[in-house]
C-alpha cells in the first residue's frame, strides 16, 4: 500500500495536519503568526547547512528552527519591539538561506521543493520521520494542554497556579520547530504558517471552548490537506499551494456563514 505515492502523500499530509492544527490554535491565541514565519523561514537556512554538512535535511532544519525560535523567544519581553524584530528575523532568515543555498555549487537542488513543498516525493523513510515528529508534537501538546492554556490566558494566573509560563513558552517553541521540520516536505517554508493559522482561524467562529477549536481546526486542516491533494492531482496544480488555497476557501466560507448567521439573528430580532 505504501508503494503508491498518492497513499504516502496522503498519509504525510494527514500526519502534518494532525500536529499543525492544534499547535496553530496556540499560534493564533498567542499572536505568534510572525513568530511562526520567522521559524519557518529559517528552515531554508537549515536546508543549506544540512547539504553543506552532509547531514539529514530534517536534522538541519530542526536545528536551525530551534535556534531561531529559541533566540526570538529569548529576546521577547526584553523591551524590543517584537513586531519589528520578528519581521527582521523572518525575512533575513529567508534571504540568508537563499544566498547560502546558492553557494552550494555542485549540489543540484530543487529550490521550489523547499519553498512550496514536494509532498508527492515523500518516501517511506520520510513518512517515519514525519509520523514520529507529529506524534511528539501531539504528545507534548496533550501533556501540557491545561498549563499551556493557563500560561496563554495570563502569566500571573499561571504563576499563582504553580505554572511557570516560561517553561510553557519553551514547550511551544519546541513544538513549533518540530512542526516546521516535518511540514517542510509537505507545504514548504513559505506556506507552513498558513497551515498553522488558517485552520484555527476558520474554526474560531463556531467554537465555545479551546478544545472544540482545536478539534475544529484539525477537521479543517484534514479537509484542506486531503482535498487539496486530490484537487492538485486532478487539475495538475502545485500541491502545497492548492492545499493552502482550499484552507483559505474554507476560512472564507466559515467567515461568511458566521457573519451571515449574526446578520440573520439581528434581522429576526428586529422583525
Amino acid at each position, binding site marked *: 500500500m505504501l508503494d503508491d505515492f498518492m497513499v504516502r502523500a496522503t498519509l504525510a499530509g494527514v500526519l502534518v495536519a494532525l500536529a499543525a492544527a492544534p499547535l496553530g490554535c496556540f499560534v493564533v491565541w498567542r*499572536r505568534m503568526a510572525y513568530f511562526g514565519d520567522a521559524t519557518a523561514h529559517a528552515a531554508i537556512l537549515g536546508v543549506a547547512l544540512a547539504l553543506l554538512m552532509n547531514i539529514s535535511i530534517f536534522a538541519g532544519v530542526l536545528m536551525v528552527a530551534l535556534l531561531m525560535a529559541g533566540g526570538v523567544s529569548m529576546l521577547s519581553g526584553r*523591551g524590543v519591539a517584537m513586531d519589528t524584530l520578528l519581521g527582521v528575523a523572518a525575512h533575513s532568515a529567508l534571504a540568508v538561506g537563499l544566498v547560502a543555498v546558492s553557494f552550494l555549487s555542485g549540489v543540484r537542488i530543487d529550490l521550489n521543493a523547499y519553498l512550496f513543498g514536494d509532498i508527492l516525493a515523500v518516501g517511506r523513510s520520510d513518512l517515519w520521520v514525519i509520523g514520529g515528529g507529529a506524534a511528539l508534537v501531539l504528545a507534548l501538546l496533550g501533556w501540557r494542554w491545561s498549563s499551556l492554556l493557563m500560561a496563554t*490566558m495570563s502569566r500571573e494566573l499561571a504563576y499563582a497556579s504553580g505554572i511557570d509560563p516560561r517553561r510553557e513558552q519553551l514547550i511551544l517553541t519546541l513544538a513549533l520547530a518540530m512542526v516546521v521540520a516535518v511540514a517542510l516536505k509537505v507545504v514548504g517554508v513559505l506556506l507552513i504558517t498558513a497551515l498553522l493559522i488558517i485552520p484555527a482561524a476558520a474554526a474560531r467562529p463556531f467554537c465555545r471552548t479551546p478544545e472544540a477549536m482545536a478539534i475544529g481546526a484539525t477537521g479543517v486542516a484534514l479537509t484542506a490537506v486531503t482535498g487539496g491533494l486530490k484537487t492538485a492531482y486532478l487539475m495538475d496544480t502545485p500541491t502545497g499551494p492548492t492545499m493552502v488555497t482550499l484552507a483559505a476557501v474554507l476560512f472564507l466560507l466559515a467567515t461568511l456563514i458566521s457573519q451571515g448567521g449574526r446578520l440573520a439573528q439581528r434581522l429576526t430580532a428586529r422583525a
Partner: protein
Amino acid sequence: MLPMELAPTTPDEVLVSVSHLSVRFGGEFVLENIDLTLYRHQVLTLIGPNGSGKSTLVKTLIGAVKPAAGSVRVGAGLRIGYVPQRLHLDPTLPMTVKRFINLPHRQDPAAVERALDEAGAGHLLQATMSHLSGGQFQRVLLARALLTRPDILILDEATQGLDQRGTAEFYRRIEAVRQSYGCAVLMVSHDLNVVMRTADHVVCLNRTLCCEGKPERVASSPDYQALFGEMLADDQGANPLALYRHHHEERANAG
C-alpha cells in the same frame, strides 16, 4: 492532638513575611528594601501612587517576579487565591466560565457551584467569558480564587474599571468571603475611600516603604500627606482616611 482544622489559630500567626525585598527591572530598582508582614485574618491594603511598585510587590508574592535581594516567605502549606487586575482575553480564544474555572485542574462541580455563588456569579457557569461585563468578569476571577480555599486572598486592583456601585459591591463581597473563609486579605487599591473602612493595616509604598500602620496613623503621617496630599485635595477635597477612621473598627489581631 487536635486535627489541623480544629487547632486554635494563634492571634499573631504570621502567614507571609517579606524582608529586605528589592526588585530590579533592567538595572532600575522598582522596589527597595521592603519589609512586610501579613497575619492571619488581617486585611492589609497596599496604597501608593502609580508606578510605586504595588503590583510588582504582589507579583513577587505569587512568584511571578523574582527578587533581586531579600526574601518572601509564605508559611508552609498555605494556599493563595489570586485575583488579578483585569484580565485581557484574546478574542480568538474561545472560553466559557465553566472551562476557565476548571483550569488548570478539573474541579468538583459542587465546589464550583458554591464558589460561584459566594462570588455572586452563580448564574454565569455556562456563559462565554468575552460576553461578561467588567463586574461579572471580576466575580468569576474571585470565584476561581476561592476554589483554592485560600488562606490568603490577594487582590491586585481588582475593581479597576468598575463604577462606584460595582466597586462598593465587590468589596462587600470580599468582606463576606473573608468572614466565611477566615482568610487574610492583601489588596492593592486606588479606592482610598472605600477600602480604608475595611483595612486593618495600611502599607503605603513609593518604591521604598513610605509608611505603614493602622489607617488613622497612616493618614496622619507626614510622609503620607506629602505623597497623597495634592491628589486628595484635587480629587476629594478631603482626606478620606481622616473621614473614615471613625468608622474603623479595631481588630484584636491587627498588626
